[in-house]
């Protein structure tokens, strides 16, 4: 009990310190302004008045916002977080911080929590700002879509954070960590449709295998879930999404799309913490 409370206390203090350091970084402000500015630009250019295949008004804006998030967020989370543990190790910050009565797990999960908050809150505020502004300007606010997208964003950020912290904990240098993260991101992007289609056509794999491969990829899951409610004809999504939604029900897929990345992120986080606390920390 005492140990749990202590870990909790270490976690809060490290999280608090890490949030403060993040708020001072240029990365954070660039990222926040980018997302906030993006919503403002979409409103000012009249995207809510345009219509593409069933998406109109705020729905159209939110779908576009999510498409941009899918491109930017994973690589942003990976690149900014992957240096977290290994960077502290290389700069001797960790040597000093862990000479204090701070538990290994408190340190690791404290940094994890801080990164989650500083990544999620700006995008959530941007999305919420769009909804509030839309409501203020008499647009219909699709609150069900807002809730789904908020959950999907949290889930995806958590997933990539877990992966990133794992890479950071097991890497011996920042360069190696960044390279690994970048290659992983490229692979996930490539597996969205291109490689899956290639496997399907060239190797004549059955659709079930292709669906399975697609559903392992958190980016694919996110992408499919973003469009699942509002594209009943499945016309704007890629081939993999088409196969997935042709196979499973929408309700089941939404649950999966939120739960799976969280479980994946938690698993990677757990393994990352395990490596971190059982190996030499410097």
């Amino acid at each position, binding site marked *: 009990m005492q*140990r749990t409370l*202590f870990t909790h206390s*270490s976690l809060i*203090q490290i999280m*608090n*310190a890490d949030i*403060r*350091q993040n708020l*001072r*970084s240029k990365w954070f402000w660039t990222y926040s302004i980018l997302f906030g500015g993006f919503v403002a630009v979409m409103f000012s250019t009249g995207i809510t008045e345009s219509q593409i295949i069933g998406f109109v008004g705020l729905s159209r804006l939110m779908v576009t916002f999510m498409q941009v998030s899918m491109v930017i967020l994973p690589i942003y989370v990976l690149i900014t977080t992957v240096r977290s543990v290994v960077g502290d190790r290389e*700069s*001797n*910050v960790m*040597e*000093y*911080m*862990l*000479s*204090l*009565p*701070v*538990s*290994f797990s408190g340190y690791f999960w404290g940094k994890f929590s801080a990164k989650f908050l500083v990544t999620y809150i700006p995008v959530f505020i941007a999305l919420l700002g769009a909804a509030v502004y839309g409501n203020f300007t008499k647009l219909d606010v699709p609150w069900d879509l807002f809730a789904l997208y908020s959950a999907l964003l949290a889930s995806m950020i958590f997933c990539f954070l877990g992966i990133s912290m794992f890479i950071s904990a097991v890497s011996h240098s920042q360069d190696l960590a960044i390279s690994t993260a970048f290659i992983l991101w490229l692979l996930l992007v490539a597996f969205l449709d291109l490689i899956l289609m290639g496997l399907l056509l060239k190797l004549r794999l059955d659709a079930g295998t292709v669906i399975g491969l697609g559903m392992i990829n958190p980016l694919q899951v996110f992408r499919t879930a973003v469009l699942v409610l509002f594209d009943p004809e499945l016309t704007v999504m890629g081939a993999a999404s088409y196969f997935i939604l042709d196979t499973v029900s929408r309700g089941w897929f939404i649950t999966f799309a939120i739960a799976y990345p969280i479980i994946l992120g938690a698993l990677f986080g757990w393994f990352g913490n395990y490596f971190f606390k*059982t*190996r*030499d*920390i*410097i």
Partner: protein
Amino acid sequence: MTQQLNNPIIKIEKLSKSFKRQQVIDALSVDFLSDQRIALIGQNGAGKTTLIRCILGQYNFEGKLDVFGLNPRKDRREILQQIGFVPQTPPPIKLTVNELIHFFERITKTDAAAFKNISSKLGLEIDQNLHKPFYKLSGGMKQKLLISFALGRQVKILLLDEPSANLDPQAREILFAQLKNYSKGTLMILSSHRMDEIKDLVNRVIEMDLGKIVLDKLLTNT
């Protein structure tokens, strides 16, 4: 964790640590007593910093290392609550001085006034630098602040890894005076290249070379 004077606070038996194929500490056995002030000397690569990191629980190792009878890897909280540490190189922490002080207050449960008191004696007026990020302070200022954090806490072990490396002569003198007057029941381990500087402060000298103790001598001048 109550220790009587002259009981080993740190007990090391056949401690070995290697990195890949390089043996950095080689079957080292030694006891450190609660009232000792130890000069840990040796050339670069002798194993001084590695030994300190093992005591801090930052490295896995072979052999036995007990601090207050506890394992430094498994019982971090209990042990590190009682250790003040000053590193060789101040880390580039991005928190402001004010934020760092509050962080220390909460983590070590020590009042900020204790840190400010020591830093003032070392010639660093914390209040004038509260809003500066720690990493933007000069090397000497950073070191003074870290020394204040270590000495401001009432701990049972002080681990000082080249603590005077970035200090001006006046601050060095004050630091050594502070260390001399520090609580008598505290075990102090000072890693240094300059024995002449600390010879009046210590009552035991341990010289390391290639991961082994090559000299262990009790002094009677303090």
